[in-house]
C-alpha cells in the first residue's frame, strides 16, 4: 500500500480507499480545485448561476465572449434543436470590453473569488489586441481565452481560426500585450486542426482550447426555410463529443501546450475521457443550458465516485510527470487506465 497524491490509499489492484479526494489541476501556473470550466457563452458572467449554487466550487469559468464594441448580435430565432444537441447563432452579443471591465468584473468580484478566464473576440487583429489590452491589469483575470473560432459573425471570428497564418498573427498580437497566459480557442471547422494548433504555438500561445462549435444548420419543413434567422449556426451538445475528443487527441500529439478540452461534455465520465485524450482541464458548454446544475453535478460526482477517482488520480499522476505522451504511449497508457476504470 502506498499513499499517493490526494490522500488516495492505493494498492497494486488500484484504489482501495479514498480519504480526501484531490481533484486539482495546474492550468498555466494557477491551481484549479478541479478541471471543470463552464465554457464561454454558456455561463454569461456567472450571474444567472450564482443564485442556483455557489459557483466557487468550479475550477473557474470562461466569461461571455467580449469584443471591443458592444454587440447586440444576430436576429432571432438564434436557437435550433438537433438530436443530442443544439445550434446557436447568438453572434457574440456582449456589452463591450469597457462595460465588462468596469461593470461586470466588479459585480463578479462579489460572488466569484477565483481567477476567471477572460474570453475575447474580434473582427481584426488590432481589435483582438486592443480588447486584451483593455483587460490587462485586472487581478480577477487568470487567463485570456482568445476566440478565433466563432462561426456566427461575418468578416471575423472563425476566419482567424481557419487560416494558420491569421491564427499565428492574432496570437502574436495578443501575446505582445497580454499580462496573463494566452489560450487560443480553436475552430473544428477546418480540414486539419493540428495545422492551426501549430500556428498558435509558433505565435507564442501558452495554451489551447478546443473545440468551438461545429458549423451546422436546420431547415423547418413547414416554412421550408432555415430555422435560424442567420441560416447557419454553431452546433454543440453531447452529439459532438466524439469529434471533440478526436481533435483534442490529435492536437495533444502535435503540440506541446496544455489543452482545455471541450465539446459535448456533460458528465464526469466525459471529463475523464477528455483528459485521457490529452486535456489538462475540461470545458462544459451546452450542458449548462439544458441542466443549469450540470457543472455542479459533474464536480460532485468526481469528488465522490471512487472508481472514477482512480482513473482521475492516474491522470493527475501522469500530468505531474515531465514526460509527454507520444501517440503510441498515449494509447498504451489509455489502455491501462481504462482497465482500472472497468474493474
Amino acid at each position, binding site marked *: 500500500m502506498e499513499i499517493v497524491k490526494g490522500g488516495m490509499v492505493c494498492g497494486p489492484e488500484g484504489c482501495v480507499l479514498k480519504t480526501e479526494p484531490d481533484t486539482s489541476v495546474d492550468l498555466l501556473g494557477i491551481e484549479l480545485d478541479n478541471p471543470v470550466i463552464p465554457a464561454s*457563452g*454558456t*455561463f*454569461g458572467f456567472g*450571474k*444567472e*448561476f450564482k*443564485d*442556483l449554487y455557489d459557483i466557487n466550487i468550479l475550477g473557474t469559468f470562461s466569461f*461571455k465572449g467580449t469584443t471591443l464594441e458592444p454587440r*447586440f*448580435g444576430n436576429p*432571432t*430565432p*438564434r*436557437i*435550433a*434543436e*438537433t*438530436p*443530442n*444537441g*443544439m445550434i*446557436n447563432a*447568438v453572434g457574440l*452579443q456582449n456589452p463591450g470590453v469597457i462595460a465588462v471591465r468596469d461593470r461586470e468584473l466588479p459585480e463578479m468580484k462579489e460572488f466569484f473569488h477565483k481567477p476567471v478566464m477572460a474570453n475575447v473576440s474580434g473582427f481584426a487583429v488590432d481589435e483582438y489586441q486592443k480588447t486584451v489590452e483593455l483587460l490587462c491589469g485586472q487581478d480577477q483575470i487568470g487567463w485570456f481565452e482568445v476566440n478565433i473560432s466563432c462561426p456566427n459573425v461575418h468578416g471575423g471570428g472563425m476566419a482567424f481560426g481557419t487560416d494558420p497564418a491569421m491564427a499565428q498573427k492574432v496570437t502574436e498580437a495578443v501575446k505582445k500585450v497580454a499580462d496573463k497566459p494566452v489560450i487560443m480557442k480553436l475552430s473544428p471547422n477546418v480540414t486539419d486542426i493540428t495545422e492551426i494548433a501549430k500556428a498558435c504555438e509558433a505565435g507564442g500561445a501558452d495554451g489551447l482550447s478546443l473545440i468551438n462549435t461545429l458549423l451546422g444548420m436546420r431547415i423547418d419543413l413547414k416554412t421550408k426555410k432555415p*430555422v435560424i434567422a442567420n441560416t447557419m449556426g454553431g452546433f454543440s*451538445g*453531447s452529439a459532438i463529443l466524439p469529434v471533440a475528443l478526436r481533435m483534442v487527441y490529435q492536437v495533444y500529439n502535435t503540440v506541446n501546450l496544455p489543452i482545455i478540452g471541450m465539446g459535448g461534455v456533460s458528465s464526469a465520465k466525459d471529463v475523464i475521457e477528455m483528459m485521457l485524450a490529452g486535456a489538462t482541464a475540461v470545458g462544459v458548454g*451546452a450542458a*449548462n*443550458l*439544458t*441542466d*443549469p*446544475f450540470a457543472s455542479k453535478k459533474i464536480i460532485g460526482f468526481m469528488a465522490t465516485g471512487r472508481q472514477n477517482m482512480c482513473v482521475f488520480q492516474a491522470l493527475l499522476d501522469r500530468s505531474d510527470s515531465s514526460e509527454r505522451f507520444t501517440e503510441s504511449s498515449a494509447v498504451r497508457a489509455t489502455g491501462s487506465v481504462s482497465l482500472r476504470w472497468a474493474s
Partner: protein
Amino acid sequence: MKEEIFKINSNVLIAENTYEMELLGDTSEIVRPGQFVNIKLDGFFLRRPISVCDTEEGRMTLIYKAVGEGTELMTKLAPGTRLNILTGLGNGFDLSLSGDHPVLIGGGAGIPPMYSLCKALISVLSPENIKVVLGFNTEEEIFYLREFQDLGVDVRVATADGSYGTKGFVTDVLKDLDYTFFYTCGPMPMFRAIEAIAKTSGQYSFEERMGCGFGACMGCSMMMADGSYKRVCKEGPVFRREEILWK
C-alpha cells in the same frame, strides 16, 4: 428558479390539437401569472418552455398545443410519468398596472397565462370590471371558455371563420371596448393588430425560441425601444407596451 420533479396527474385533449396537463409537485417558485416552466423530455436535447395556466399549492396546470415533435411526445405521456421541470421562470404580469377595469386579450396558445392572470386580478378587482377577449381560428379550437365564465368576468370570443362569437379577430371585439389597461399573449400578427388600435398602455407576453430559459445563452434577446436588449426568458416574457421596439 428551481429544478423540480413533477408527476403528471392528468393529460387530456380539451380542444382541437390542444391539451391540458395537470402536474403535481412544488409550485412555490411560481409567484406571478405569466411566468413559465421549462420541461425536460426524454430524447430531446432542449427543454420545452410552456406558460403556466394555473397553480394551486402542489398542483400546476399547463395547456399546450401539439405543434412539433416535442409537444407531440408530451401528448403521449401517461399519468404517473415524472418530469424534470425548471419552474418559476420569467417575470410575469404586473397586476398593479391594471387600473379599475382592464381587458385581457388571449389568442390561441396565448390564452393559458390569461387564466391565472384573470384569477389573480379578481382577488383585487370585482369580476364584472374585468373583460376577457379570446381569439380562435374556429369553434373546434375553443377551450377554457367555461372556466373564464365561471370566474364571473365579462368574456367575449372572436373566431376567424365566424363559427362562434364575433367573426374576425380579437381586435374586432377590442375596438368597441372601454378599458384602463390591457394584458395580452398570443401570436405576433395579433400583437401588431392590437398595437395599431389599443387605446391605453398594456403588457405583451412574448414567445421566442430558447436555449436555456434562464438567461444564460442569450438565445432569445430582444432589442428594445431605448436601444437596450432584454432576454425574453429572463427580463420577459412580459414587456410594457412603451418599451417594445416594433419592427
